[in-house]
């Protein structure tokens, strides 16, 4: 079977690409997509460790399922906030949302 480190390497690369998306994009929706990529990298890690180290204990899959729940809640709330901000300021660029910035 494929060794564990290959899964971990792909997950690490996915996490770093997602982090780059979060740090470098201006559009709030693109930033949310970067966060989704990072959450997926975490899920790959959880399931890979579960499969290779404790395949009879359900903790890895259960935690991955909770990550799904949190990701769905985060996407719904994040996009609702983006739409509310767009309605008020006609912009989805995060640098334009500066009312609380001193």
């Amino acid at each position: 079977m494929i060794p564990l480190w290959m899964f971990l390497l792909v997950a690490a690369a996915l996490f770093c690409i997602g982090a780059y998306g979060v740090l470098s994009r201006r559009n709030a929706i693109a930033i949310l997509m970067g966060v989704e990529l990072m959450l997926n990298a975490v899920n790959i890690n959880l399931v890979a460790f579960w499969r290779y180290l404790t395949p009879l204990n359900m903790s890895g899959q259960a935690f991955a399922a909770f990550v799904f729940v949190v990701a769905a809640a985060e996407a719904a709330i994040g996009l609702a906030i983006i739409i509310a901000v767009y309605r008020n300021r006609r912009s989805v660029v995060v640098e334009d949302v500066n009312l609380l910035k001193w």
Partner: protein
Amino acid sequence: MLEINGQTIAFFVFSVFILGGALGVVTSHNLIHSALYLILSLFGVAGFFVLLSAPFLAAVQVLVYIGAIAILIIFSVMLTRSMTALRQVRNQQWWLALPVVVLLFALLAVGVILPVWGAEGLIGSEPVSDIVATTADLGVALVDGNQYVLPFEVASVLLTAAMIGAIVVARDDE
């Protein structure tokens, strides 16, 4: 070394899906293209779950991520007209972000993954057992009083709260 069989080929194909899709997400100028690349990447992750013998999570990945979250993202791209309004895709710090994430990846790969799990004969070159817990075990674990019933209920409250919150925040109250 790695023998070439169906599993290895599937692993590399899904890796290409995941990483290529992710690169497309962060570099596309058109956000609709970004969202479609995101779907490709999420599909690759679902393939990884199948390879790791977690079929339920693969199905949930397709249903929840591709079916709900990606479609939600496409809807909000359309609602906010963000693919036409933006000429400049990256902010001023992107040149700083690039070396930071490359350094982070190098640190993770060289510092953690390869020394701990990469060497021959150490943990993780093969799974500890070929017997794998099934979807039925996951279902029992999520509602078992000794395991995850409390996080499970908290997660359902979180989802309800998020749904109501999203409706309230996005509602047009005029």
